[in-house]
């Protein structure tokens, strides 16, 4: 009581001020605000938004749906976060890597048949081969960036355009249908578990990534290499290896996303799987308050960014916007965010506010 009595009036005001200040400076605020706006909009238009029910032994409702649909994006975004943090560039081949690793997996499972319910190889082995495909793509990208010193976007542009063609060659130019119900375990549901596997997988991967970046020095190394490569090399970090590792992790995570994505529809379509997901992933990282120029990163921010984007997407779909038209919105939002977070823009805003402020003073004086 005494404590409260002492700090009346002014202290509450200043407390609010500090909270507001820390909110304004926090890099997460932006994405949380957008997420809240989208949620509020959804609650107004659809009153049943928060309703969660169990149908056919599965949790269903709007929120589980968004969590389910966002899982691929969340997984890809985590990899993208590391690449952006370590290199200051973007991996735009993630969608193509998804297609490649799913195609490897489909090829292992189906053999040369296009539609079958018999597994030609053990399920786990096929998944591992798929992930290996993703990892190899990551090694290719990472090699180009760290050892040949190419700009990340140009290096990944090679797989961005050739990747889907390669995936098409792996599946002999056809969509592969995997009819065995076991294949859907990863993307839909394991019998008896009431939560969609995609949600479990994405949660597990988020936890692993948080633990890895917090408990080991990987997060610190990635940040220091991203902020400035040459001093990091001078203190004994192998910056090439760390960049390569970021790309390999991104490749593996894209591979997981590809397997999850193909498993949830029960087929491998190399032309459609993960199409234009790279744009969403970049947007998610930017929304999460991460610097696109490399350096500091926040896993939590990226995850929130990814869920925000999925919420926006779901809302836009509900407003009957078609998938291919969605790109216009995504491109527009990403430009606005990047312009708003650019140094030049901040400088201009600061100058403007200072001008207005000084004018007021002179008028008052």
């Amino acid at each position, binding site marked *: 009581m005494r404590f409260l009595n002492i700090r009346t009036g002014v202290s509450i005001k200043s407390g609010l001020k500090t909270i507001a200040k820390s909110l304004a400076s926090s890099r997460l605020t932006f994405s949380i605000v957008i997420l809240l706006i989208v949620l509020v909009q959804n609650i107004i238009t659809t009153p049943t938004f928060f309703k969660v029910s169990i149908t056919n032994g599965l949790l269903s409702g709007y929120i589980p749906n968004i969590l389910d649909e966002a899982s691929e994006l969340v997984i890809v975004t985590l990899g993208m976060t590391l690449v952006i943090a370590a290199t200051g*560039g*973007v991996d*735009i081949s993630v969608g193509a890597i998804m297609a490649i690793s799913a195609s490897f997996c489909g090829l292992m499972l189906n053999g040369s048949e296009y539609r079958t319910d018999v597994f030609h190889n053990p399920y786990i082995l096929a998944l591992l081969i798929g992930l290996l495909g993703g990892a190899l793509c990551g090694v290719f990208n990472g090699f*180009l960036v760290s050892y*040949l*010193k*190419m*700009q990340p*976007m*140009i290096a990944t*542009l*090679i797989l*961005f*355009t*050739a990747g*889907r*063609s*390669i995936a*098409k*060659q792996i599946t002999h*130019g056809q969509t592969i249908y995997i009819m065995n119900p076991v294949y859907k375990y990863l993307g839909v549901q394991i019998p008896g578990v009431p939560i969609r596997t995609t949600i479990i997988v994405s949660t597990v991967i988020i936890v692993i990534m948080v633990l890895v970046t917090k408990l080991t020095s990987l997060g610190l190394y990635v940040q220091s290499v991203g902020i400035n490569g040459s001093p990091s090399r001078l203190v004994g970090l192998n910056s090439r290896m760390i960049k390569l590792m970021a790309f390999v992790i991104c490749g593996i995570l894209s591979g997981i996303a590809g397997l999850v994505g193909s498993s949830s529809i029960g087929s491998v379509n190399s032309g459609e799987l993960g199409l*234009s997901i790279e*744009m969403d992933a*970049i947007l998610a990282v930017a929304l999460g308050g991460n610097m*696109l*120029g490399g350096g500091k990163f926040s896993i939590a921010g990226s995850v929130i960014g990814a869920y925000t984007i999925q919420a926006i997407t779901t809302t836009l779909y509900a407003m009957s916007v*078609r998938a*291919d*038209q*969605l*790109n*216009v*919105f*995504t*491109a*527009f939002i*990403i*430009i606005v965010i*990047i*312009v708003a977070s*650019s*140094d*030049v*823009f901040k400088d201009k805003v600061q100058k403007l506010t200072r001008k207005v402020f000084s004018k007021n003073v002179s008028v008052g004086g």
Partner: protein
Amino acid sequence: MKDSSKSIMQSQKLILKRKGLSDTKLLLLITVSLFVILYILSAILFADRNFAKYSVFFNLFNNKAYLLMLALGLTIVMISGSIDISVGGVTGLVSMVIATMLVDSTVSAVWSIPVALAIGIVFGIVQGYLIAYMDIQPFIVTLSGMFFARGMISVINPRSVPITDEMFMCWSSARVYIPFLYNVRRHGTHDVAYLTPAAIVAIIVMIVIIIMCKKTKFGRSLYAIGGNPQSALLMGVNVKRTKFLAHVLCGLLAGIGGLLYTLFAPSGNPGNGYGYEIDAISSSVIGGVMLSGGVGLPIGTFFGVLINALIERVVPLLGIVDASWPRIITSAFLFAFIVLQSVFARGTGRRLTRSRIT
């Protein structure tokens, strides 16, 4: 004594050799000889396909006139040390807008020209402003531009529209025969080489760009800011304005490229122009333009485009029907040339950062 004088002689020879053959010229030489070798090889391998005929050679270029425009645009921005990957999207957007505009023939086909140029310039101005004056990474800006253009295509029209406008089709199918360049067919008729109006436009634009890069102040500033923006600034070059203009020019060329593409394939299709940015980038890179900026010649890009056209022509003859193979092979070429450039950059050390166009 003898040994040391010998080694001095050798090193002098090496220096002379290096002076005579700069990076730019060496890369150009590799490109030209690669094209010649590939062409002769395909002429030998597919003797029945008439690669030795003039008309086949000119058709290579007729089919890829639009790509030359896109690649020249990319050459300019890449020399300035930037990049533009929205050109494919702009191409698709232009072709879709023209097709939708001409669908009921109420608008004259002449309007397609200013519309195409305007779309290109608007993209160039917006992207150039964001890149040059707001200092945002060119790749992100133009990636957004690409997605924006792709999205706009399906906002305008999600189905494919054929162009039936008479005047436009007349432009599209017109041929300008080149006198004296013909082969005699077996029946005695002449197989005369020809150029399409699109190809003629492309050649004129290319000549203008070559002169611009070589002779004008803007062209020289391009190389300067691509080689080293800091020293260009100290030299008194307006770096931001030059970069901005480079992007506007690239946008304009993408608009022209879209028009030429629509002349080549007269229909609006949501898939039009998909992946053309990589074709354009790979043509430029294969033509000797360095991704790091400051090095490259428009004439090299011309040969890069020809190599691209040749790959697209030859791969189906090898018995590979799948349309995805030419792109895989082009990407492999791109990869090889990037590795080559990296080797050059390492071999010549710091010289890479300085423009050497002698």
